[in-house]
């Protein structure tokens, strides 16, 4: 069975992790789904890298069992709050993955 990521998360957010990194926290609705995401490694795919505008080798994915969460950390396109940055604390940068099929 497949679903859109947005429909199967209790928490899905993005924020700065310092001025040069962006981090996405994805908490799926169940431990089973967390296990599936970890097993099939959907969130480490080329498609995810492409949607986030980074190369596959720039994706840092951590499976955080205590928090039932998957964390994706990537370099920022531009440093937070630079003149050409349009999302100063990175708060809307989860949006490209909302419709990802999982």
């Amino acid at each position, binding site marked *: 069975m497949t679903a859109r990521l947005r429909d199967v998360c209790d*928490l899905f957010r993005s*924020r700065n992790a310092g001025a040069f990194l962006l981090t996405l926290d994805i908490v799926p609705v169940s431990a089973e789904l967390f296990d599936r995401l970890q097993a099939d490694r959907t969130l480490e795919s080329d498609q995810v890298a492409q949607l986030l505008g980074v190369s596959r080798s720039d994706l840092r994915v951590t499976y955080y069992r205590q*928090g039932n969460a998957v964390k994706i950390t990537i370099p920022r396109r531009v440093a937070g709050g630079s*003149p050409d940055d349009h999302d100063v604390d990175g708060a809307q940068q989860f949006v490209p993955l909302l419709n990802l099929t999982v």
Partner: protein
Amino acid sequence: MVKLIAPTGVLGVGFSYRSFRQALAHDVDVIGCDAGSTDWGPYHLGTGTSWSGRDQTRRDLEILLVGAREKNIPLLIGSAGFSGSDDALDWTRDIVLEIARERGLSFRLALIRTEVGPGWIEDKVAGGRVAGLDGRPPLTADSVREATRIVAMMGPEPFQHALAHGADVVLAGRSSDAAIYASVPLSRGVPPGNAWHLGKLIECGNAISEPVAAGACIVGTVDDDGLTVAPALDGVRCTPQRVAAHMLYENASPYLLREPPGILDTTNAVYQQLDDDVTVRVSGATFRPEPYSVRLEGVTKLGYRSMCLAGLRDPAVVGDIDHYTGEIRRLLDRSAPRRFGVSPGDYTLEFRRYGLDAVLGPLETAPRDHAYEIGLVTEVTASTQALAHQLVAASMPYLMHGVHVDGTRHSANAALAYSPAVADLGPVFRWSVWHAAELDDPLEPFRFEYLDVTAAGDAGARREAAHR
């Protein structure tokens, strides 16, 4: 065992007064509060100004200061004035002195300055003790000298040093958030894994409680075997999920957190709900010492910015946005040398197209023909505020009616959002220093000052200039 209050995640954001008074009744050893962040960009360090207003900062500080003096326990404030710059520290100090005067409080106030000068950094660079963080290239002498301000993010030792010198209230410049809370437990011999884990978990105050909107203060207790966190307000609870989730927040990794003396490792941490259903017990974190290192944060000024917000609603303009803004750019660039004596290379003209692609930029995948209205920001960054303002003003006739868009039948293409139409945004900065510097001594670059504040309203100053 050490008991601490974390009233809120950022000084000035507010918290429940009732909760704070309940927390104080817990026989607490120390009150801590973080006042800063880099997450809202380089402007605050560049200007030495706070995100929060003076009144809201004073409101929070007054409650904390009065409570701390009433119980005669230390109050530790980190990253004072948001950026932790010297100016921001002085701003916070003046608020503290004002409160002390009006409330008749006596205490010894320590100020810890964390701005670092180019000479000290260049010596560090020359000695091979500075490394780029998060992909930053090596630091150069030029980028150090060009920087408007650089602060070093201190660890817990400067707090401990100030307390050992009799401070009741410590205002620190840029500081690790977790170090504010870890400092006293560490000096009392609590295992570093527990002390640092507590510090990280409570540094955002009520973020680990629910409902967050209650604004509960958090009481954290740490001992040899672990730590507990609980909100000091009826109807609010901490849950293992929320507490564990906080390790994700604004961190690159939920397991490994670099702090000045080493790395907090929570890989084997266990989060459990206690029987009262509001308290969470945490144990199992470890701390691995590393070469002592502080993050250097510095910004460089690029100029001054002005902007104009206009709404585009005519379908012909919305549908031809690239041509429309391209023409505005062409016309402004053509007229600027004659009118202002500058060439297009002397300023930066940018358009933000809210409703189309302003937020995600090249990552936007929504079909463009879905846009029916665009909030168009025209912005110019130039060497002076006056020039930036005039360049935006000069673009307005083009914005309004100087560009012909096929299909329009009207005299104006845009709806100005405000009067005045041009807003000055002040100086613009970028992060130019984001590096780690190894220290020989945790106090090395930091400067201490002590003020004996008396109820009579005078503050006797004693300065301990550079530590070494």
